[in-house]
Structures are given as structure tokens and as C-alpha cells.
């Protein structure tokens, strides 16, 4: 069993997803710190220097991110107040716009009055507390709840909402190519004359989050990660929520639908963005036309897929209709969007594929596996699938120098590239 990151990791990624925020872990210097720390270094590095801290430097122990209070058995009994005071005073002057102290699971049992320490350290104006952090709950829940907590803590001002300004909701570092995805959607919005104000949890700064209330609407790309965030904006600031009925813009079809939905919600002209997609479609057509008669063509290839409903539904739909690939195993991850899940199930049923739902990929032996990279490699190495394509980031993921995407037109091309290069190697 390959465990998925939980709500605790989701909480930390939500905080670190604010570009000028810093997490301080009230935790041992152990796995509860090591995983998120290594994850950040790989997927959202902020270091600008090769010089590393010495392992003797208290609270950091050789790392640049996520200082921790290195709790031990004494601290669980007597509390961690002294260490917290020290680490807070150490990082307070580093210029972060937001500090967040997060309790590890064990620390949440101590019951220290963390808020009091913030007040005593005169840091309550820039530091917030997470006494508990969705331990063992699904990642998206922790991420979403933490995002709402951050927005609440910032006490956003009710600002005049301006036309042609939108926020993009639901992005997280856990998603493969998250930065490229955001860049791609910003580009599409730009083509429509829209300005993206903020992407909460997706790299926006505190000041951008403060400005987010000027958006005319919130475009929810991944509802699993942003349902509560969207509701928060709607309830507190009246900002309407926009969902594309076809899910996230994965593949040409869903991207076009997304463009239409966004344009309709904002009153913008979708034509330039649609023209861009058309251009990329044409390019894809030419590339595919070169190889569709040959052995390296994926029509009829089977695939297994595991991920968030809002992503895997449009992807599966597109692979089926665009390339003639068949889903033989579909697993929707927890915290699914109910409407999208329902549409997905209907799609499978309508195409005589109901058995694909929750089928074990190790049994159905698909040609392709889309999902967690380790699970995919496991199937490949066991001879149970031919090739795997990673949809999520992990501490074991590859390093990327170029910025790829899975969303939008460029994302569709990248997916096609992965598929066609893999299929080339399939024996006839």
C-alpha cells in the first residue's frame, strides 16, 4: 500500500503555497518534518544560495526551510514554550509576511497556549497558529481548511469587485506541474482579457491574497481542494463561484469548455483563447497524422487512472474520445467532487465500462497507468503495465528544469507527447 499524503501535509503545503509565508513546526526533528521539508525543497524551492546552514544551527539543523522546535519526551510533559519563544524570535526578522506555527500530531496533545506565546513575543500580528492539522484526513481537506484559515486570519478587506479580474482556486504543489498549470491558465485568461488576481495556495503572496477580494468571480479549477475556500469567499465577500461542468481544463475538449464557461461568467470574449487552442489542436493533428498508421499509435491502448475526480474525468473522457484509449481501471481519490464523480460514473456506464470503476490495475494489466509515480513504477517493474505517467508530486519525483503543464493547450500537447513516445516502444 502506497500511502497518500494526508491533511497534515495539506495544511503545510497550503501555508508554504503562500510565497512569502513560512511554516514553523512545533514538532520533533523527525519524519513529520522531513517529509514536508524535502517536498518543498524539491517542488517549491526558495533557496537562492548554495550555502547551506550548518547542522548545528538550532531549529534548522542544516535545512533552510521549516524550522522546528525539535520536541523530545521532556517537552511533551513540560510543554514547548521556551523553544517556541526562541525559534519565533529567531525567524521573526527574516522578512516573511506570514508565519504559521503548526503542531505535529504529538505536539497537538501538549495543549500549550500557543496564542499566548505569540502575544508575548509581539508576533500575533504576523503569526498564526494551527493547533491541529487534519491528521490522517484526506490531503485536499487539510489543504482547503488551512487555506480558509489563512484567509480568515488575514482579515481580508471587502474591496470593490472589479470586472475582468478572477481568482483561480484549487491549485496545490501536490499536483504535478502545478506551476506550469497555473501559468497556462493565466495565459488563457490573459488571452481573454482577464487578470488573475490570486491563486490561494498556489504561490500567491500575502498581498495578492489581500487583493483577492477584488475578483469578480472565483474560478474553481479543482473543487476537491477549494470547495470550502470558494464558499468562504462567497459567504464573506459575495464572490460568485464558477465551475466548469466538464471538470478541470485537461485535454482540448475540457479546455475549450472551460474557456467558454469562464468567458460566459466574466462577460469576456473567448475567441482569442479558443483560437489558441485551435492552433494547438492543428499542431497536434499534424503530429498525430504522421504516426497514426504505424505501430506507435495509441488507439485501443488501455489505461488505468487514479486521481482527483476533477482531473481524471476530463482526462479519461478526452483520451477515450480523442485517441480511442480505453479506461480499464478508474479509482477516484477521497474528497471527490460529487457532481464530477457522478458524471464520470455515467460516462463509464454509457460506454460499457462500468467494471473499470475500482478495478485493480495489477489485475487488468493496463498499457498506461496515470497516478502516483511510485504506484506506476511498481506496476511497470512487475510487468503489470507498460508505462506510467505521474500525476502527483512526491519526495521521490524527478527534478524538472523546464516548466511543463497538464492543463490547457500546452498541457494537452505534453500529455500527447508522453503517450506517443511511450507507445512507440510498444510491440505490435
Amino acid at each position, binding site marked *: 500500500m502506497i500511502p497518500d499524503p494526508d491533511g497534515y501535509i495539506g495544511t503545510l503545503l497550503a501555508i508554504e503555497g503562500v510565497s512569502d509565508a513560512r511554516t514553523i513546526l512545533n514538532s520533533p526533528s523527525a519524519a513529520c518534518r522531513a517529509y514536508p521539508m524535502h517536498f518543498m525543497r524539491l517542488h517549491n524551492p526558495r533557496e537562492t544560495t548554495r550555502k*547551506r546552514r*550548518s547542522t548545528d544551527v538550532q531549529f534548522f539543523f542544516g535545512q533552510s526551510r521549516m524550522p522546528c522546535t525539535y520536541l523530545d519526551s521532556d517537552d*511533551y510533559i513540560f510543554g514547548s514554550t521556551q523553544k517556541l519563544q526562541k525559534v519565533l524570535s529567531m525567524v521573526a526578522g527574516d522578512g516573511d509576511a506570514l508565519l504559521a506555527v503548526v503542531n505535529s500530531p504529538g505536539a497537538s496533545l501538549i*495543549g500549550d497556549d500557543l*496564542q499566548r506565546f505569540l502575544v508575548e513575543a509581539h508576533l500575533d500580528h504576523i503569526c498564526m497558529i494551527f493547533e*491541529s492539522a487534519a491528521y*490522517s484526513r484526506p490531503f485536499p481537506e487539510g489543504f482547503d481548511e488551512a487555506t480558509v484559515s489563512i484567509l480568515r486570519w488575514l482579515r481580508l478587506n471587502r474591496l470593490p469587485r472589479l470586472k475582468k479580474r478572477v481568482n483561480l482556486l484549487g491549485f496545490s504543489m501536490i499536483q504535478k506541474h502545478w506551476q506550469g498549470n497555473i501559468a497556462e491558465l493565466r495565459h488563457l485568461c490573459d488571452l481573454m482579457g482577464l487578470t488573475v488576481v490570486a491563486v490561494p495556495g498556489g504561490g500567491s503572496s500575502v498581498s495578492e491574497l489581500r487583493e483577492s477580494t477584488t475578483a469578480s468571480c472565483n474560478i474553481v479549477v479543482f473543487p476537491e481542494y477549494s470547495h470550502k475556500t470558494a464558499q468562504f469567499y462567497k459567504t464573506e465577500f459575495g464572490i460568485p463561484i464558477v465551475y466548469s461542468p466538464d471538470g478541470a481544463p485537461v485535454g482540448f475538449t475540457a479546455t475549450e469548455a472551460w474557456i467558454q464557461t469562464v468567458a460566459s461568467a466574466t462577460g469576456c470574449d473567448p475567441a482569442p483563447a479558443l483560437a489558441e487552442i485551435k492552433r494547438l489542436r492543428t499542431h497536434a493533428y499534424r503530429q498525430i497524422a504522421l504516426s497514426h498508421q504505424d505501430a506507435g499509435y495509441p488507439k485501443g491502448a488501455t489505461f488505468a487512472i487514479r486521481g482527483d475526480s476533477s482531473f481524471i474525468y476530463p482526462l479519461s473522457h478526452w483520451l477515450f474520445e480523442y485517441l480511442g484509449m480505453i479506461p480499464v481501471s478508474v479509482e477516484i481519490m477521497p474528497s471527490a467532487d460529487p457532481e464530477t464523480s457522478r458524471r464520470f460514473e455515467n460516462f463509464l456506464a454509457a460506454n460499457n465500462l462500468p467494471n473499470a470503476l475500482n478495478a485493480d490495475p495489477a489485475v487488468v494489466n493496463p498499457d498506461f497507468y496515470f497516478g502516483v509515480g511510485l504506484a506506476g513504477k*511498481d506496476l511497470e517493474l512487475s510487468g503489470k503495465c507498460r508505462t506510467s505517467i505521474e500525476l502527483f508530486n512526491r519526495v521521490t519525483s524527478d527534478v524538472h528544469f523546464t516548466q511543463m503543464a497538464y492543463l490547457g493547450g500546452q498541457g494537452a500537447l505534453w500529455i500527447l507527447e508522453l503517450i506517443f513516445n511511450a507507445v512507440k516502444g510498444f510491440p505490435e
Partner: protein
Amino acid sequence: MKIYNSAMREMIHIKIAIYGKGGIGKSTISANISAALAEKGYRVLQIGCDPKHDSTRLLLGGKIPETVLQYIKTVLPDDRKAEDIVYRGYGNVACVEAGGPEPGVGCAGRGVITTFEFLESLGIQSSLFDFTLYDVLGDVVCGGFAVPIRSKYAEAIYIVTSGEYLSIYAANNILRGIQNFSDAGDRVAGIIYNARSLMDEDDRVTRFARAVHLPIIVRVPRSELFARAEKEGCTVIERYPESQEAVLFNALVEHVESIIPENSGNLYPALPLSDEDLEQIVLLRKDSKAANKFLFQSKKDDIPEKYLSESVRNKRPLMGCAFIGAMSVISQITDAAIVLHCPRGCSLMLTERLLYIEQDSAIRGYHTYNREMIGRYFVTDMADEDFIFGGEKKLRVALESAIGKGFSTIFIITSCPPGIIGDDIGKVSTDVSKCFPDLQIIPIKVDGNLTGDFDQGFMEAYRAVIGMISPDTSLKISRSVNIIAERGHGMNPEKNIQVIQDLIGSLGISLNCRFLTRSDVDSLRHYNDAKLSIPANQDDTTKSIKKMLAVVSDIPFLDQPLPTGFYETKEWFLAVAEIFGEDEKAHQIIETEREEYQKRIGRIRPFLKGKTILISTVLRKIDWICDLAEDLGIKILKIGVMNFPFPVPFTTRYEGRIPIVNNYTEDLYFDDIQSLKPDLILYNLHFMLPPDQVRSARIPMNPEIGFHAAIRQAEKWSILMQIPVIDGWKKDGVEVE
């Protein structure tokens, strides 16, 4: 007296906590105060924070409501409503019970924290009420039970006490707790004296009150009326409104009203007494003699030996945790299940890394991919509710899953939360084992880092597995060895062990067991079948493991650890050969290897002869580098031995021939680079990265093994001498840095 018409006047919003020793009558007093306040037209919320959850019983006609914690456990987040857990009691008092775990499990303090967070999330706020009363257990003022004292909650605190010493002791302890939150200003309203009609009781309480500078607000006499009202499930205020007791509570309520700011509320600082003063003042006892110490007569042998890591022994900051240390060891047992009793986040790092290593090394062709690894881990995914109610149920479920998958040996490894809340792993293991006679469940109760760091967990896991070794030596294989305490040598550990197997194989010796790497349960049990055990390393942890093994096994240990480089391997090989009477054969093999070694030295010597090296290391033995340097004509300018992380002394055969500096610091290191200008720097630690203008190479923490392991490192150095000193990309960093 003002009569407040709740419909007409502005709301007040006062929050009051009532603390006292368990059984002192807080709940009775709280309920009567709430009833009296309600009678006066105030809107009142009473929150019971005692796990017994009977605080509001007298307001609810004797009924016990569903508790917040039980509600959270059973109702999905989207379905939760305030109306489900707030009950309407006498006088429209809103009643809430926090609840708590069953006695003996979980963490009630955590439960209180969760309750308060939950009430806020549902919008059950003090702002809806004139008075909010928190009825709180005062025996334990840990973080959780102190939540009502936090500044954002109680603005005033009453302490209930009788004249019994332990009750006053608890009252004093509560004052200590309040004092820790003194930033919120003076908040003690006074003492509510719940008399027991004991001799001298009034004087005791009076002396205590004077000493801590607190008023006794009211003396509630012992009265049958309270028992009668309780029997009927109601307060005295409700049932006997004209009674003297009801008059007392109305007077108490007048004092509560005086806390209202516009009445310039009367609140006092918390000034607890020391234990000695408390005893002297309350009991009029002065005993300055120290308590006598208990003398133990047990023999040293009766005390089980403790194996403590260096960091634990010296109370240094713990790096890593015992949970991961234990997991890293047990994951090497190829046919055992591992139940990780922990929240999900604790298990992620190592499970992903281990799987990645398995896959990556299989892709590189080091071994055949073992898919079984994925199916051996079972994580209990402890969540908030398990911290409150205990995680044993989930542990049972995980064990049953492992059994269902056919595992007959199951290890349980615990992280911090189950240790803190006191989950009884042993009991669960015993209960489950009873149903499966052939099953072996082995708990490794490291409790995260409560027992120590990574190395501590490493040793605890070894200890657990050593307990499985069979004492039976009837199947002894006279020409076989064990290798113990491997830590993953080089880039390809399997290839390295193959080197050793080939070497000993050339002497007709087989490998009995790798204790503990890629071994199955059966081979570990048969540890005693071998004639000799070879340690992989010589570090502190290995020494402890050897001691543990010596308790269950007579197998001798080879003095030398697994060797790196020609010289060390030669010595090691001869030592092994001597034990098995194969000296002659060994010498022949060594000569063959020497020829190969000399050839390889000859190939790279032109690039390295005359070069100078500066070494910065945390390792305590690096003679393989010194040997290489000598063979290659390299001059070692200095060996700087850094302190982290081991206090074990540095040893070398080259003592007196190479300058060695102990307690080597970063400053000394960078000074030496400037002054000595070495051609090559060898270092261990990432933050000792040399300047770009100097060639450098990392010294592996676990170098490869065998005759030619060292020469491979030198071959890398020779390549360094042929390529540009500064990698082009680094020049781009001038602006970035």
C-alpha cells in the same frame, strides 16, 4: 438590585470558569449558579469540561446529554449542527457537555481542546450569552484542561474547595496554572467554600484564603437539600427556591454580577503558595526535614541493560526519531508485516523512500524488483478522534488486515501520539494473538521520539528481532558467517555484499544470515547456525547491537568491520581465513588482487602524484583514504576531524605521519583552504562545501567494500583533475548569490 430584562437590555458577555478538585461539588455549584442567573433573566451557557460529563445534569432534569466528543465521532462534518449538542435546561440555560474518552484510554485534555474548537466552528459563541460558565476538572491542569483559563476564554475564575487538605492543595495548584496565564491580568474572582463540616475546616480555609489574598465569596454548608435536589435531578434553585441554600446562591450570583465591567468587577491575581508554606499555613505543620531516600538492594545483574544512543545518553537534540529508525530496520525483513501505529504523516517519508530505493536499484539492475514490499505495510492513520478516544481499535483493525493477508509475523511500531495517550499495545497484541496460535506479534514501542532518535529506534528494532533468535545450534553450519548491522554501503549495497560473498565464497565459506538486511524471518531465527559474525561497521550502534547479540548467542565477532580498500580488505580477509584455516588460499587470492590493484593505481597515478589533499571528516576511521594517498603519491596536508555527531575518538595507523586536528570547525576549515591551498578537498558534510575555485569530492558516509572500493574513489578524483575546476553554471550564480 437590577433586574435585567433579557429582551430589553444589552448583552453582557462574561465568561467564568469554575475549577476545583474532582468530587468537590463544582458541578452542583455551577448548575445552581447557572439556574440562579437564569432566574434573573440572564442568558446562560454552561459547558461541562469534565470527562464524567455530568455537569449539566441538574439543569436537564437528571438527563445526561450526548457529549460533543461522542457527537464528533459519529456525525460527518457536513451534517453537524449546533442544535444537536446544545440542550435547553432549566431557565433556558444552554447546556453543553464536552465528554471525554473512557477511563484509562485516550487523552481527555486533548478532548477539551477539540471541544472548544468545535463549538467555535459551529458558532456557539459566548457572544450569544450574558454568562458562559465553564465547569472544569481541577485535578489535572495540563495544557488541555487549562484551555478555559486561556485569555480568550474565562475572564473570571472561581475556585471551589472544602477544608480537606488535598482539596486545598488542588486549589493552590489551580492558582499555579492561572499564574502561568498571568498576561491576561487579574482573573481570580475568589473562593467558593463548600464545607464538609470537618473539624477546624473553617479555620483552614480562612487561613488559606488569607495567605493567597483571595476572598471567600460564600460558604456553602453541608446540606441534605443538595442531595434531595440531586436525587430529583434538579438544582436547589429550582426545587427549593425559598431555602437558605438558594439564598446563598443568589448571594453568590450577586458577586458574579459584580464582575460585570460597569460594576468594576472584583478580580484578584493568582498568588499560589509553595508546598512548604501551604502545609505550614493550612495544617500548621512545619517540617523542614527532607524525605528519606529509598535504598535498593537489587544486584546489577537484575537490572536489564539499557542500550541508549549517543544523543539520548547525552541529552542532545534528537535528530530523526526512533519510529523511523525502527521502521528502517524492520522493513528489511522480507516476509514480515509492519503495522505502523501512527498518523499518516509519520509513515510517508520512509515508505516512499524505501519503495523508491527498491524500484531505483531494480531499474539499475542491482537486483530483481520485489513487489511484496508494498503489501507489507499497514498504517493505522490515527486522527484527532483517536488521540481523544484511544487508537487501540484501529490497531486491532490493522492487525486483522495483516493477518487476513496471510502474515504470520507482524511487527508493530508506534509513533508519538499512541505513546502520549497511553495506547496499550501489549494488551492488543496479546488479545489478537490468542485467536491465532501460530501468529507472532512483536510490538516495538518506540513511541516516535519519546524513546529517542533514529539510532535509538534502530537499536530497539534490533533488540526486538534478536529476541526471535533460536537458541538451537544443532543445525550449525561450520563454514558460514553472519553479517550484522549493515547500513547500506555505497551506491549499490547489494553489489557490495556480493563482493563479500564472493570473497568468503572463494574460501569455501557461505553467508548464513544478513542480520538485518533483506532477510526473511526464518534466516534471522537461525542466526546461531553460523560460526562467525562479521560486523558491517564499528560505530556506537554496532557495539550496542553486538552486546545485545552476545546475550543470546555465543558466536564470536570478527574484530574488523567490513573493509574498504586494498590494505583493509587484505587484513580482513586474512583474519577471516585464519579462523577457517584457509590462510594459504587467502594469500594466493590477495596476490591476484594486488596485481589488479597495482595496475589500476598505475593508470591513475600520473594524474594524482604530487597533488595535495585537505580532509574534513566526521568519520572516525578513514585509513582507506590515507592508504590510497600513500600508494598514489598524494600528500595529505591535514585531516580535520569534526565533532558532529560522535564523541568516539578518531583513530589511524598514520598517527604522527599526517597532521590531525580534532574539534575541527568550519572557521578552521575555511582558513586552511586559504592558507594551505590544497589541490583537492575531501569532505563529508554538505555545509562544508568548499569554494568553487578548489576541486572537491564527498567522502561517502558508508563507503563501498572490497579490495577495489577505494581505488574507484581515486579514479573519480583523477577525473576531477582533468575537468574544469569551476563548473560553468556556477558563474551564473554571481548575480543570484
